[in-house]
């Protein structure tokens, strides 16, 4: 029996368009990763390249298998901003 470290919604993953991979932070400091292709094939396990932890990805498999991409926040540009008090 596989023991998942956690279950994470696909909406909470960050999507990298270049690598077509979804990422979520791992407690070890690296990131859990699962590719769009994996999701389209019905995979639901995201693995961390640096440790043994794995997470279960919660998503609508039917939506992915149709080739529809779930909107996930994309990485943004650098910003240093002042929030007034």
């Amino acid at each position, binding site marked *: 029996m596989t023991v998942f470290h956690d*279950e994470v919604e696909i909406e909470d993953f960050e999507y990298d368009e270049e690598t077509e991979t979804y990422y979520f932070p791992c407690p070890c400091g690296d990131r859990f990763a699962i590719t769009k292709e994996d999701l389209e094939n019905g995979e639901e396990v995201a693995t961390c390249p640096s440790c043994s932890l794995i997470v279960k990805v919660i998503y609508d498999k039917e939506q992915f298998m149709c080739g529809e991409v779930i909107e996930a926040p994309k990485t943004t540009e650098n910003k*240093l901003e002042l*929030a007034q*008090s």
Partner: protein
Amino acid sequence: MSLSSESGELLMCGQNHKGQSQEVITFQPCPLPGCSRVQQVSCGWDFSVINSDCDGQVLVCSSNAFGQLGFSPGITHSAEPFHPVTSVAAGLRHALASTASGCVYQWGTGLSSHAKRMLSPHPVPAHLSSKEPCLVPVAGSTHCVCLTVKGDVFLWGSNKHDQRVTDVHSGWTHLVVKTESGRVFTWGRANYGQLGQINQSTEKEYDISTSSGQSISRPVEVKALFGATQIACGSEHNLAVVGGRIVSWGWNEHKMCGDGSLCDIPQPQPIPCFRDITSNEDSTS
């Protein structure tokens, strides 16, 4: 990573693909616009929150993918007026600020989709899903509110049994608090030994195991940590200074507990190579 020095200078190091800092492996000074002194800095996964001593201003930098910088796209600064900020804290994708008037503000959506699923059909409270600073309704002078990195809310207050909390430390999914009398309590996720508690299997407060692992929902005292002078939490492990000696417990897959092994440490144990070294107030860690 960020540090603030005694002189109020900000030092940072680490990755910079989201503007967190200079991309270097040694700490470098990071000049701030306007005011020059930093009171406190807190780091999230890929953003930083800086509490300056310039009229209680809060500076934020780096990723805003989850609203963790506290303002919506297109707005260059927050329109929400703050009373002078006394303390800031950053979670994975959210941040908190406490003010001199005793209020707590929160921003960043964090894992609100997780909250939606858990709370459904009830709505997610506004302060857990706001991209701009939002007043947390439960904070007050006799209550402490703490959010873990994953967004679980814990609150507690003083009572007649001398459990006034003086220190709060949070891992990703567990909490360690110290009371005025020096007692240390832990609660939250337990499956890597990060709570440091003895006889967890017989603990009456034990929650039913979930696929995410076992957890304990009420604070339980860890007697081995009584009188700890310093406590620090990593994501799933901890360090503390007790009786002048440094102890560690919790997740150890990457040897972060410092005992040389890869085995999780279920209860606080002195780190072997520091066993003969006692700390004193003037020594640096």
